[in-house]
Every structure is written in structure tokens, then in C-alpha cells.
């Protein structure tokens, strides 16, 4: 039963991705503006413009371009970037790895903070701690994150000079330096997530704490720590993890603004840049990758759900 469900879900991603990629192909070509023009505009030369279009394969009929692209995709070839001539697969691969690293850390940090906070808030329902956590989390998810990022740079980067503000260092090069570079972007990313997850954790914990078996556990005389840690936590965690998974998936493609502010060469910024440059193959490739990962993350979360939460059955 479970495996049938898994198989069905996996197969369902194929039409989803096909629809999505066709959509993206069409949408991208509807964009006004011409990548060839961006390259040769300074020459002010219509003949050269036409020649450049031809060289880039932009003057073929749309349907032919689509067929060519589909054939490439079947061969797992994503083509080359229009504006740089680099292979798309390589380009989006390295960029995606950068984003994935930062976003993973941000989500883990957020989970580590939000889960205990939410649980404690629920355990102290309607007391000062609860109110404090709730107020703080509402505040966190209400502040525009690019504003926070700018203020962080102003404080820790410019005024105090504690942390670097520009660029990115891969942990394989220099772990300590990589950590220093990651502190502010991770902070800017995870504040909102902490808010979302703490609220989620609190509300599910409240439900769990009100259930019969917790009452029973308390009646047995178990300590508060034992009740919270051994009984409430495992049962309340599953929905929070589900939401965390969804946020994780969304951030993998949606961290463009933070990446721009902190100059992180991630996939979000690549996407925005390639939209501006009308670099069709790069837009298509990265959208497809982001979409695929998002679907897979959600799928994984869904599939893990019954394993994490003993109450859910299929």
C-alpha cells in the first residue's frame, strides 16, 4: 500500500515537470527584450544584431526551438548559456550547491531553536514565556527580511566590523572563514523561519499536550521533562518537520534577495540575473532544477510523515 503510494507520487512528478518546463519555455520567450541586443547594443548595427540572433539560434521559429530544446533535455543536455557561453548544467550545479548549503544550515538552526521554544511555550501555555515566544515569533515573521539583512550589515559589518559582508567562501577551502561568511546570511534567512516554526511547534504541542495519553502520562506521575521530551516532543514534531521541509524547498529557489545583499553566488541570484539578461537556457535550466528539487523535497516530507508520526496511516 505504502509503496504503491510512493510510486504513484513519483510518477506524478513527470507530468508536473513537463507542464512546468513547457510553461517556462513559453513564458521566457514572451519576455520583451532580446539577449542578442544586450550583447551588441553598443555597436548600433542592425546587420550585426541579426547575425548575432542567428548565431544564438534565436531566429528559428518558436516551435523548432522548443523541439530542439526537448530533444536536448531528453539527452540530459541543458545547452549553453547565451550570455556567457558556459554549459548550463555546470553553471546551475555549482550555484545550487552554494544555496543548498546556506539554506540547509539556516533551516537546521531554525529547527534547533524553534522546536524547544515552541514546546516550552506550549508547556507554559498563557504564561509569560509563552507570550514572549509568541510575540517574538510574530515579530520575526513580520519583519521584511531584506531590511533585517541590511541592518545586520550596517551593525556587524560596517560599524563593528566583526563579520565579512561581501562574498562567499566554500567550507572546503577554509572552514572557519566559511562559517564567518555564513553567519549573517544564515541569520537573515532563519529569523523568519524561526518565527514560522516556533508557532507551528507551539500549536501542535498544545494539541498533543491536551490529548488523553499525555494526561495519562502525567497521572502516572512522570516528571515534566519526561512528559515533554519523551511523549509530547515526538508526537508534535512531525507537522513541524513537514512545514520545515516545505520552507526548505521554497527557500532553495527563493533566497534571491538575501543572496543579492550578501553577494552569495547562489541559484536564486543566478535566476534573477538570467531573467534580466534574457539568458533563456539558464532560466529554463535553473527553474527546472529548482522546481524538481522543490517537488522532491515535498515528496520526501510527505513520504517521511507516516514514519515520523505514528498516528498517520495510509
Amino acid at each position, binding site marked *: 500500500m505504502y509503496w504503491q503510494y510512493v510510486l504513484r507520487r513519483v510518477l506524478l512528478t513527470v507530468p508536473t515537470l513537463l507542464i512546468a518546463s513547457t510553461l517556462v519555455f513559453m513564458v521566457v520567450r514572451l*519576455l*520583451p*527584450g*532580446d539577449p542578442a*541586443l*544586450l*550583447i*551588441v*547594443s*553598443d*555597436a*548600433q*548595427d*542592425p*546587420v*550585426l*544584431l541579426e*547575425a*548575432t540572433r542567428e*548565431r544564438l539560434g534565436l531566429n528559428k521559429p518558436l516551435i523548432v526551438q522548443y523541439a530542439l530544446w526537448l530533444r536536448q533535455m531528453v539527452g540530459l543536455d541543458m545547452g549553453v548559456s547565451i*550570455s*556567457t*557561453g*558556459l554549459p548550463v548544467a555546470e*553553471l546551475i550545479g*555549482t*550555484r545550487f550547491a552554494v544555496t543548498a548549503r546556506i539554506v540547509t544550515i539556516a533551516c537546521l538552526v531554525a529547527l534547533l531553536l524553534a522546536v524547544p521554544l515552541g514546546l516550552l511555550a506550549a508547556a507554559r501555555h498563557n504564561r509569560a514565556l509563552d507570550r514572549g515566544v509568541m510575540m517574538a515569533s510574530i515579530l520575526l515573521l513580520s519583519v521584511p527580511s531584506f531590511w533585517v539583512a*541590511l541592518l545586520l*550589515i*550596517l551593525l556587524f*559589518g*560596517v560599524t563593528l*566590523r*566583526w*563579520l*565579512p*559582508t*561581501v*562574498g*562567499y567562501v566554500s567550507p572546503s577551502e577554509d572552514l*572557519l572563514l566559511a562559517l*564567518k561568511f555564513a553567519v549573517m546570511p544564515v541569520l537573515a534567512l532563519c529569523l523568519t523561519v524561526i518565527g514560522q516554526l516556533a508557532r507551528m511547534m507551539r500549536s501542535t504541542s498544545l494539541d498533543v499536550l491536551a490529548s488523553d495519553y499525555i494526561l495519562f502520562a502525567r497521572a502516572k506521575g512522570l*516528571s*515534566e*521533562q519526561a512528559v515533554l521530551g519523551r511523549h509530547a516532543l515526538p508526537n508534535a514534531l512531525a507537522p513541524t518537520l513537514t512545514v520545515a521541509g516545505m520552507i526548505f524547498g521554497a527557500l532553495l529557489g527563493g533566497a534571491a534577495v538575501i543572496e*543579492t*545583499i*550578501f*553577494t552569495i*553566488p547562489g541559484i536564486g*541570484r*543566478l535566476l534573477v*540575473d538570467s531573467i*534580466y*539578461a*534574457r539568458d533563456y537556457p539558464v532560466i529554463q535550466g535553473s527553474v527546472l532544477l529548482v522546481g524538481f528539487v522543490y517537488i522532491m523535497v515535498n515528496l520526501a516530507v510527505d513520504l517521511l510523515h507516516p514514519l515520523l508520526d505514528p498516528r498517520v496511516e495510509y
Partner: protein
Amino acid sequence: MLPETDKAMLWRLLVHRIALCGTFLLAACAEEAPRESTLRVALSADIRTTEPGVLRDSNTDDVLMHIIEPLFSYTENLEVAPLLSSGWQMSDDGRRYDVGLRRGVLFHNEAPLTADIVAWNIQRYLDPETGWICRSLFDGSRGLRLAAVEVTAEDSIRFTLEEPDSSFLHKLANLQCNMGIVHPDSLDADGEWVTPIGTGPFKLDEWRAGEFVEMSRNPEYAPVQSPRDGLAGNRSPQVQTVRWVVVPEPAAARAGLLSGQLDLVTKLQPADLFDLKYASDIRIHRGVSLDWNVLLMQTEGTVLDDIALRRAIAHAVDADTLAEITAGQGSEANPAIIQPTSSFHRSCMKAGHVYDPELARQWLSRSAYAGQPLTLMANKRFPAMFENAIIIQHMLKEAGISTQLEIVEWTTQLDYYARGDFELMSFGYTGRTHPLLSYSVILGSKSDNPMMQWEDPISLAYLADIERGSDDERMVDQLCELHDRMIDQAPLLNLFNAMAIDAHVDSVSGYQTTTFNKPRLWGVAIDAETRTSAR
């Protein structure tokens, strides 16, 4: 259950731990050995490629000009000066140019520069397969046709033109064309571009797409003996390494400079200076650049074919105020297409439309304009174009002309521009180094090329005359005549030249802004000892 005291202990321990981690982190930030002589320069977007003149943009040109060098380049007041060449000799009929090569110049792979290699480069650029963006300047489609390129000696090469052309050397030195001479090993056996093996003061070390371009000093560099001047003269490198860091967000670039992670940020906007000028360890350089800002008016098929309306607009715009706000204090309006620093600039080119709201109203009443809003297109990518549009809207409103802003993406605006599909457009041109090149950007037939702004057969004839002529005095007269016609017909409004604004930390020395608005890193040194940096 833990007794209360134990719990308190645990808490205290936890707090202590956190504090400890914090201190550790800070300590780690503080102890950072000074790095060796590396200059870190912000690049507003990644380079497109390492191949010159093909998939180009200004960032790509800026980086590559340090690695590869053309035969000729420009001095600060826009005179052509030899760079890889030792000089030139023009034949009496103006059709033959004999160009000598400088001796002792080595490529980065230590191969010597020869006339054969130069000829090979020229042929490669002219080959349609290469996709060089300036081919049309030499193949006869826009006037000049390069009939032959011959090697006449080991260090001498002869260019033969079909017709004499006073701008030939300017076209060879053209900045956008970036006609750098590279060693044939820059290409692989199939003729595909691999890496630039040039003769420049720096060698390309690593390009990590989206992150940085790193280049190091060329120890074998053989400089020209004359002092550094514009992009010509002595180009000796003074720093060991240059790292171009890709920083697309201007706020991030400023923060990087202020926090000591970037040493030099170029092409700043006046608005950026608000943050920088109060910092004690930042040096700011400003200078008038070749890039010029314009208000385009579509004379074909819109209400703006009405010359009275165009004159009304011209008198309603206070270009001096505009210059001061958009380009910063000290900037002045320039009604000419030729920049004041150019050796071709004359006082006749100072005449333009004076700011006079009363006159504007008079012209407006003589026009067919009936109060309908005109569309004014601009973009946010280039802050000057955006700010000009906002302020021009305000100024036109005062004069009774109603406009509607249409802020679009730069790419989109460029498309409208290329099709000539607009009413008013706030636009900017990259600097052209010769009056002929400047005028050929705007003057031409709109039906042949919608990118042209000014269609005037008489002026076009002047232009062709200038191109063939070789008498400089006559040429200046003709340029004055051209300028007068342009002001009279008001096909577009030249506003002002953009300011080149660059800023660096005070451990950098020897840097100067150039009129080309390009970061020029030869002759620049950095004192790694005095640098107070977070990194």
C-alpha cells in the same frame, strides 16, 4: 526531576558556554594576518567571457584590458597613442598605414610579439566566424573598408584602405571593439577560445563564474616608456594580485568598502557618496567621463515630430540642475555630443537650449500639443537614467507639459530603443572617443536603422565629408556646423556627461579616475601593512 539548584547550575553552564563560543568567534575575527599584496576590486556583474570583443559588456572589457592589449590606445584627452605598436606612418593618399611593433614585448607564455601574430589576429577579428562586434567598422558596410593587411617586416605591418578615412586609427583603438592582440595558443586546435594569452600587465589566474576573477602581475611586462596617460603610456603593474569580486548590489559594494573587504569600488553613483564621504579612511575620486546622458525624443510617427514641442521641452529642462543632482556637485550641462575633455571640443559646442520656462511656454503655445500626457520611459538598472526621468517629469510639469513615467526593465527598454518605439526616453550612451563615432551613434536613416535618433541628409553629408577629409581645421568648422544643426533641430537633448566616481581605502595609492570611466589598475599599489580590515 532535577533539584532546583542543579537546574540553575545547568543554566549557568549553558550561558557560560554560549558566552565562550561568542568570545571564540570574536577572537577568530580579530586575529587575521595581513594578506600579501592583493587588490580587491568590486565588479558590478560577472564578466561574460574571457574572449575579447565578442560576448562583451563593459565589465568584461574592464577586466580584459588588463590582460590583453591592442595596437593603439587612448590618452586622457582622447588622442590615439601607440601601445603594442611603436608608431605609424600614413601614406600621402591617406590609404596606407605602416604600423611598427614595439620590440621586446612578450606574451604571457613568453613567446615574442611578431607581425605575423598581429596579422593573424586582425584576420581572425575580420572573419565572420569569430563574431567580432566591430567587424562592420572595417568591412565596408559602414564606410571604411580594410582592403589588405600585410606583413612587411618582422616588426612591421601594413594596412591598406579602399578609401582614405580620418578615423581609421580611432577605429583600431575603439574601446568597445577591444581589438586585443593574443597569442594563437589562446585558441585550441579547433579554433575554439580557451584562455586569453595576452601581453598585458596582468595574467589571468582564475575565473570562478559568479564569484571572482583573479589575475596576477606579469613579471615580464615590457612597458611603454612614456608616463601613464589615459589608457596609454606606462602600464606597469604594482600589485602582486588583483581580485575582481562580483558584487551586483551597490549597497553591498559600499558596505564592503566600509568594512574593509573591498579596496576599490568604481563607477559609483553620486548617491553612494552620502555614505562614503564621512568615512575617514576612504578616498574618493571624481572626474568627467565620456558617457553621456540624453533625453531621446522620437521624431518619427509621434507628436514629437513637432519641432515647436521639442524646443519647448528643450527649454523646459534645466540641464545644469539635472547634472548637479544626478551626477553630483560640480557637474555641468553639456549640450554637445562631444565631451569637454576631448581635443575636438570647441567653444562653439557650448551653445545649447537655455533653461527658460517662459520661452518653453511660448514654444508650447506654438505647437500642436494639447495637454495629452507624453510617455517617458526609463529603467532602474541605471540610476542616472531613472533619476533624470523623475526630475525631467517634474520640470516638464512646471512648464505645462504632462508626462507619464514608464519604468521598465533595462532589457525591455533597450528593445523599445532598438525598434524606435517610444515618445520620450531617458537614455545614456557609453563614451565614444572620436566625434565621428559619437555622431554615427545618433545620425542616420531611421528607416534603415531604427536605433538612429537624427535623420538629416545635410548633416549626414557633413559626416561623410569629415570621414574622408584629413584637414583638422576644416573638420572643426564642420563639427561646429553639425552641432548648430543638432541644437536647431532638437532631435534629442544632450544633458550632461556622467561623472566617473571611484572610491578606495586609503592604503591604496596611485589610483586615478579616467575619463573612460574604467578601473585602471596598473600603476596602483596597496600597502598591506596599514590596512585596517575585518578580514
